């Protein structure tokens, strides 16, 4: 296969050439056309095209594998996670006895906050199924309710106190086991139970509720407005989303200006000498440092030395900014270097000072590239878990973070923690949280693309 495509010009004579080529060079009467049209040449041509086709096939194969893997991932995620966006609720005829729910009798939020809404729900359920007699049966019956149902009901009554004193049908949250059974994740066992968590009696109650239309899947609002919880039916991603948002906000505010400023200085102003060479090598090395090391740095410096708050998005943002800086600097320098030198020359030739050349011409032209680099760095930071573990953002935090210094967790950490929980109900919540994370990521990228297009159109 080492046949040269063209015979090199060789003064040593035809003997140095491959035999086939040498023959084809001989001036014979029989041969018509040149040595580029004979059979050997055509064979060479065919081989060339075959090589090209193979090369293209490898490319198509690579892209096919990539798309297939991506589709597989997305389909798995969606099929596992989409059910988490609806939640099983029970409809019960609840009697809002003023003596129970409104101990002070003035319908004020303070009074209602002391009311026992759990009792009215439990009473309503026991009334619905009077056949549940005895401690064990009652306990089994009440296990159909979510422990969080009463808090949701209380909020509803505080918003609308006119319900007090009346009896009306109200949807309340079912427990995760009921939810799993309704969604078909629990298989019915021979004894009439399901999933090893529900017994025959409970399954019968659930089926009775379903038959009368008092058990239904409804949009899971709680998932978007709650924080973490021990009960799978009560968890929400808002805590993680806001934690991630605050963390990325700090990260972007710190890393983008510093990164761009460093890139501009290094690329446009810094003298090229041994010192700047060392800086450059170190920036490139920093980009390859494992992220957990940055977490250790944050723990040692920000928490232990400066005494910053544990689990705070502020510290998480600073640590992630340190981690993204090298990426942003490298991408920004590449974007600056890609600005054609002719534009610089034109500006210098008109008498622009160095700063004017950079600010008026180089920076606007490099900005789209810088934005792209920064958004890649931000996307990396969004998915980062390891450094956040070191600074305590892995805690079980029920409250929604209110600001940069309140305790928070981040979306990927939240996913990691849910994936670790043994309850069947967390499986779909984990997938759903991943879907939310991907949506977050897509939104960020969309904003970046929008900004990029906007700046490109101006120039």
């Amino acid at each position, binding site marked *: 296969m080492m046949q040269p495509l063209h015979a090199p010009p060789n003064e040593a004579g035809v003997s140095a050439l491959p035999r086939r080529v040498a023959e084809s060079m001989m001036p014979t009467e029989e041969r018509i056309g040149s040595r580029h049209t004979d059979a050997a040449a055509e064979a060479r041509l065919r081989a060339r095209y075959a090589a090209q086709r193979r090369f293209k096939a490898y490319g198509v194969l690579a892209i096919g594998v990539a798309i297939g893997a991506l589709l597989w991932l997305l389909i798995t995620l969606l099929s596992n996670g989409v059910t988490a966006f609806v939640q099983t609720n029970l409809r019960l005829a609840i009697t809002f006895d003023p003596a129970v729910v409104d101990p002070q009798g003035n319908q004020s939020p303070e009074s209602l906050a002391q009311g026992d809404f759990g009792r009215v729900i439990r009473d309503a359920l026991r009334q619905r199924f009077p056949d549940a007699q005895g401690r064990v049966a009652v306990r089994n019956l009440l296990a159909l309710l979510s422990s969080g149902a009463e808090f949701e009901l209380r909020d509803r009554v505080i918003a609308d106190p006119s319900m007090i004193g009346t009896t009306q049908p109200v949807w309340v949250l079912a427990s995760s086991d009921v939810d799993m059974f309704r969604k078909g994740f629990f298989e019915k066992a021979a004894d009439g139970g399901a999933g090893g968590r529900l017994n025959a009696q409970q399954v019968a109650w659930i089926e009775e509720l379903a038959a009368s239309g008092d058990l239904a899947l409804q949009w899971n609002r709680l998932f978007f407005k709650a924080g973490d919880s021990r009960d799978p039916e009560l968890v929400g991603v808002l805590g993680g989303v806001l934690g991630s948002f605050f963390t990325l906000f700090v990260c972007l505010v710190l890393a983008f200006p510093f990164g761009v400023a460093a890139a501009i200085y290094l690329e446009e102003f810094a003298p090229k000498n041994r010192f700047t060479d060392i800086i450059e090598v170190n920036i490139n090395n920093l980009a390859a440092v494992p992220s957990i090391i940055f977490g250790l740095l944050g723990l040692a410096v920000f928490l232990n030395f400066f005494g910053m708050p544990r689990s705070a998005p502020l510290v998480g943002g600073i640590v992630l900014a340190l981690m993204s800086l090298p990426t942003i600097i490298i991408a920004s320098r590449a974007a600056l270097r890609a600005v054609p030198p002719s534009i610089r*020359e*034109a*500006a210098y030739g*008109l*008498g622009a000072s160095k700063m004017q050349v950079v600010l*008026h011409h180089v920076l606007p032209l490099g900005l789209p590239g810088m934005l792209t680099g920064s958004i890649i760095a931000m996307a990396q930071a969004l998915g980062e878990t390891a450094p956040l573990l070191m600074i305590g953002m892995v805690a079980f935090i029920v409250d929604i973070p209110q600001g940069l210094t309140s305790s928070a967790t981040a979306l990927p950490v939240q996913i990691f923690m849910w994936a670790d929980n043994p309850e069947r109900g967390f499986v779909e919540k984990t997938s759903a949280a991943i879907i939310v994370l991907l949506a977050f990521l897509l939104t960020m990228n969309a904003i970046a693309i929008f900004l990029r297009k906007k700046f490109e159109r101006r120039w």
Partner: protein
Amino acid sequence: MDSNIAPSQPSVPTVVSPPMLQNEPPAIAARTVNVFYGEKHALKDVTIDIYRRQVTAFIGPSGCGKSTFLRCFNRMNDIIETCRVTGRITLDGGDIYDPRLDVVQLRARVGMVFQKPNPFPKSIYDNIAYGPRIHGLTTSRKELDNVVEQSLRRAALWDEVKDRLSEPGTALSGGQQQRLCIARAIAVSPDVILMDEPCSALDPIATAKIEELMDELRQDYTIIIVTHSMQQAARVSQRTAFFHLGELVEVGPTEEIFTRPQDKRTQDYITGRFG
């Protein structure tokens, strides 16, 4: 189209044999100029006078240092870090390598047009207005409008672009872009315009337009042009300098250089024996 064919005589210079104003002091005087790129000695002991309101052409084979020399006049070589210039170049008697001299002011006085048309990726108007803006030459929008119009008129581009001043300069054709760059240089009202092979990327028709323009501009400006085309040097310039391997071989009135070259190397080059 074969771009080697010379354009069909764009304009016969009105002054066929220019008056050599040798009594007038030169606009630019270079004395024993040497340029080094790191270890490479790119320009060796060049001494030359450039006269006012004339086109001076630098010719010579590739790598002979003519572009390097041109870039000494507005200190564009400063941008290249390894570049070192020795000797003395004066503009109207003032040393342009004086450390006290501000290079920004120098470049306002010595404009430059590059080999490849390089308009800014901005509107036509902003391209022309950029120089006056950064140097603060105008005080009102009206004045700036006026400068833009005059510059475009001088560059013979006004009629073609007057209705689309807000369109990007990069949307023009190659020849128009190069005239835009000339207009941009004129807008700063320099004394000297340096042109580094301004027509090498243009077709013969656009080339003819630029050459015509140069002939007009030399009424007001001192023009130095680097060119690979000897026909172009013969057509547009009044004085020609021939460079070879970093040396200035010969300089004199264009007619004499092309008809009676003193040096064997010049003769070989203009008759096409090398280069």
